[in-house]
């Protein structure tokens, strides 16, 4: 819980805007607008000019969604093994260690329980900055345990996906995490416990082809890349340019694969209303 007690007070969207310190400017990656960091945070890391939803991590999503000081992290110390002794241009072990140091995260997902508008939920949120948000055994196992928590406590499950897919460096083990998590979700469904899947930019590969697409309700952030195969691979396969907006949230909504697109600033409120419908008899 240490991260939640940071001295920096105004990380939470509802906190009061304070005096702007110097040199704290960020540039929107989409429209190049210069925005003050604290302004950016208050706006949930969404560009004030073009509405571009900047990529954020589990820490930020927790601050956006959860009632203050209610989130309790699970399996915080779980770290990747190196079952294949995998090595490419780097050893996998070194890659993981470097990433842990650089990101301050132990792997590509944070899991736990907490309250959203007073309702207790089990939660998992992926982090793209940890090896592309890739799903290896740690991600699979932590998500499976979070689902188990939802199952035993009879509380809704929420997963925020943000992932390039299964992690290559754990070979077939990574692949099997898709089956592991999907099987746990099947048990959850059999017991009428709701699961809400939230897709953010990007959600592709094995992550999409398992828990991301299995929500009772599937929500996406605007303009997120969501698909199975990556756009580059598809382009190479068909030998043609891809249509505008291909594999974006709006495209998936149009084709019937997600329920709704919700801008980040409305996420907590809308999620709360969905939860009210699906979790009435649970607690």
């Amino acid at each position, binding site marked *: 819980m240490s991260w939640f007690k940071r001295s920096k007070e105004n990380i939470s969207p509802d906190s009061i805007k304070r005096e702007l310190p110097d040199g704290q400017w960020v540039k929107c990656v989409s429209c190049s607008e210069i925005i003050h960091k604290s302004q950016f945070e208050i706006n949930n890391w969404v560009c004030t000019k073009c509405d571009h939803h900047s990529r954020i991590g589990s820490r930020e999503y927790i601050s956006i969604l959860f009632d203050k000081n209610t989130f309790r992290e699970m399996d915080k*110390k*779980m*770290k*990747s*093994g*190196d*079952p*294949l002794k*995998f*090595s*490419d*241009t780097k050893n996998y072990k070194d890659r993981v260690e470097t990433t842990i140091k650089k990101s301050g995260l132990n792997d590509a997902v944070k899991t736990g329980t907490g309250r959203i508008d007073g309702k207790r939920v089990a939660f998992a949120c992926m982090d793209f900055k940890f090896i592309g948000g890739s799903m*290896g*055994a*740690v991600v699979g*196992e932590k998500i*499976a345990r979070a689902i188990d928590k939802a199952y035993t406590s009879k509380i809704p499950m929420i997963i925020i996906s943000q992932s390039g897919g*299964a*992690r*290559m460096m*754990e*070979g*077939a*083990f*990574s*692949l*099997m*995490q*898709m*089956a*592991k998590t*999907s*099987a*746990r*979700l*099947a*048990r959850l*469904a*059999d017991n009428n416990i709701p699961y809400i899947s939230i897709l953010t930019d990007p959600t592709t*590969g*094995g992550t*999409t*082809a398992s*828990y*991301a*697409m*299995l929500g009772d309700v599937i929500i996406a952030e605007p303009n997120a890349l969501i*698909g*199975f*195969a*990556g756009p580059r691979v*598809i382009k190479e*396969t068909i030998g*043609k340019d*891809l*249509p505008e907006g*291909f594999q974006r949230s709006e495209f998936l909504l149009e*084709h*019937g*694969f997600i329920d709704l697109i919700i801008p980040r600033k409305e996420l907590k409120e809308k999620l709360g209303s969905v939860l009210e419908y699906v979790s009435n008899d649970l607690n």
Partner: protein
Amino acid sequence: MVNNILEFEKPVAELEKKIEEMRKFGDSYDIADEINKLEEKVIKLKHNIYDNLTRWQRVQLARHPARPYTLDYIQMICTDFVELHGDRLYKDDKAIVGGFAKIDNQKVMIIGHQKGRDTKSNLYRNFGMPNPEGYRKALRLMKLAEKFNIPVVTLLDTPGAFPGLEAEENGQAEAIARNLLEMSRLKVPIIVTIIGEGASGGALGIGVGDRILMLQNTWYSVISPESCSSILWRSWDYKEQAAESLKLTANDLLEQKIIDRIVPEPLGGAHKDPLYMAETLKKILKEELNKLIKIRPERLVKTRLEKFGSMGVYEE
């Protein structure tokens, strides 16, 4: 067949050719001894080569164009095959075939990826790369099997789910995800066998089951060695290293406890003696089926959940 000789098989092919030529002169010269010696040498050489294949060489064998495919196995193993078509939603995918069949007296629902043998049939089968409708057809057949209490046998052999425009529009990811969820709770036994290539989600989409078998010269992993090479080394030239790193052979996966059993292949690969291969697979499928059909559905589903739940290595 001449074109189908792999690089590492060339010494064997050369020796066999030499024996063949000597046989032609067999009448005029007394060279039986010489031929016998050479034949012994060939067998020794074969063992030497095929018992010590590198991982990349096994990948090549798994892709050998003469290997038996799903419909070949169905023909050799099953009787009374009734092929069933279509996903009832959109289309009939030719890259996944399936239907009712009997293995001796045991009714099964047999489903597998189907590759083609030449350009024309490969285009027809989309090189064994399914679209969403293929996974949805497979699921429809599995639910049908469940309804009538018939065990499911799946045969995996795909270079991957098709990365196409329509496939994405029609929900490739959703189709695979749905299958993983439904297969994990299907109330009849499922036996999965990798008969060639087990490439990633495209393979796993019909690959969740109670017993996972792998033919000796096949591969199963999260990505193909070529794609892995292109992503991690940023070049297509490191496929051999990628194959080594991915540890994707039957022996590797048995060691990783991801599969339950290896189905031995004839010396040189399944295609060297397809009938013998099919006989071996049939025998093992029957053994496993006989064990599984005795287990109550609830127990089966629970054990399946635990089986996949235990896969993965991490530190706490």
